[in-house]
């Protein structure tokens, strides 16, 4: 089965895969996904900036009902899923959360992963980014 990323420009590297945003040389604001101009100051230049893979759940919720298009459900059909913001220190990133409801809480340590989002018409599996509980939150931080 072939796979592809939901959008190439969100990612850098393969193993380990990292999210890539942009950072302003002027005010050090970090954005995601990357963009050409700084949303905060008029002075800085933006350059690609790889984001940390570990963070803490900053807020979370559940998507209980199937969204309308342009949402594309996974191969097996819609199943309720969690989304949230993950605090990566320099930026909070919105992401799918692969965290069981019973474990879910603000402050939960999580780390980057990928998950199948949907399939293209030709059967290609489309991967998106997500965060899952981090078994070793203190390591490498």
């Amino acid at each position, binding site marked *: 089965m072939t796979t592809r990323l*939901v*959008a190439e*420009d*969100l990612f850098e590297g393969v193993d380990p895969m990292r999210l890539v*945003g942009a950072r302003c040389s002027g005010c050090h*604001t*970090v*954005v*995601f*996904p990357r963009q050409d101009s700084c*949303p*905060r100051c008029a002075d800085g230049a933006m350059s690609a900036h790889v984001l940390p893979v570990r963070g803490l759940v*900053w*807020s*979370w*919720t*559940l*998507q*209980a*009902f199937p*969204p*309308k298009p*342009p*949402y*594309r459900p996974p191969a097996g059909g819609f199943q309720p*899923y969690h*989304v*949230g*913001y993950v*605090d990566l*220190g*320099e*930026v*909070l*990133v*919105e*992401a*799918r959360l692969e965290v069981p409801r019973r474990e879910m809480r*603000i402050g939960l340590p999580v780390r980057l992963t990928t998950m199948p*989002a*949907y399939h293209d018409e030709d059967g290609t599996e489309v991967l*998106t980014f997500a965060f899952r509980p981090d078994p070793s939150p203190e390591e490498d931080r």
Partner: protein
Amino acid sequence: MTEGRPTTRARSDEVYVVGCGMHPFGRDDTVTGMAMAERAVREALADAGVGWEDIGYAAGGSDVSGKPDTLVGRLGLTGVPFVNVQNGCATGASTVLAVANALRAGEASLGLAVGFDKHERGAFNVSAARYGLGDWYAESGMMLTTQFFALKTQRYLHEHGVSERALAMVAARAFRNGAQHPMAWRRKPLTEQEILDSPEVSPPLTQYMFCSPGQGAAALVLALGNRAFDLCERPVRLASLALRTRRFGSFEVFSPWLPPGPHRSPSVDAAEAVFRRADLRPADVRVAQLQDTDSGSELIHLAETGLCDHGEQEELLAAGDTDATGRIPVNTDGGCLAGGEPVGASGLRQFHEVVRQLQGRAPGAQVPGAPRVGFTHVYGAPGISACAVLTV
């Protein structure tokens, strides 16, 4: 940017609401958006005792239900300048702002603001491109307004130690007020427990804590200076009106990322601006309208606009302070929760309710004690808020 200062205007430069009209909110397949708008306008004109041909400047807004300026085909082809505005949930406020500015700029002495919409059932459709986002964002299931409200509320409850029951109290009061209001959509009171037990949409928000897209129309006739007193026994002064876009670091819908906090909302800026310009304090307000697309939003807006402190909401609600008979009545017509949210009409519904409260002729629960200071607040995508202070 020029910041608002307390405004001392001659009475001849003041703008007043001298008439208002409204088509009942809800769902009624037999009537179009334009027909509802026409009815609201005719009612507002009759309320002001003027004819359409007296209107020298008009502004209208509708998200999905037609070009407002085509209303001239129904109302009369007088040649009137008619500007269409579109600012999402702040559309109604934008129409009032456009008309008030035109009157003060000398374009006319009598103006009309109208808003209407008729949405399809279910959540609003979105286009990622229209928000400058990649398709991946919507396709992977993160582009839903309901998620945004839930995520913002979840964090807010956590940070300020507010319980989920407070969310139910907001909705229960809305339905209580709606039950008394002849133009509200949802007229059945619900208990807090019923609200908490309704299906989970996006925790901490349940189904009955969300408003639905609906339909409706509302219109205001505005007059400049002395003209207002010639027309109206009790004109309501538009003491101040401010629209603000977001500043860096606000927490908005459809944000793939946020900066580390604090996240300051445009609601804070707009509210500060209107109180400063009106030379009044939030504590002076005796009847308020707050954007309540969901219970969490109203809760947050109560504090963001300065009507209470952060974390104080639960106490306020439990004490009945936001009831029509309370210290600071909020959404006396049931707000969006009981009325639904026809985007173009919703902001003008707020004006309609506050004006009629200040004139002592509320269609539903009248705030006792002849309130003299009213407040309206809307908030929406892409990070815009508008507040107004109205006085008699």
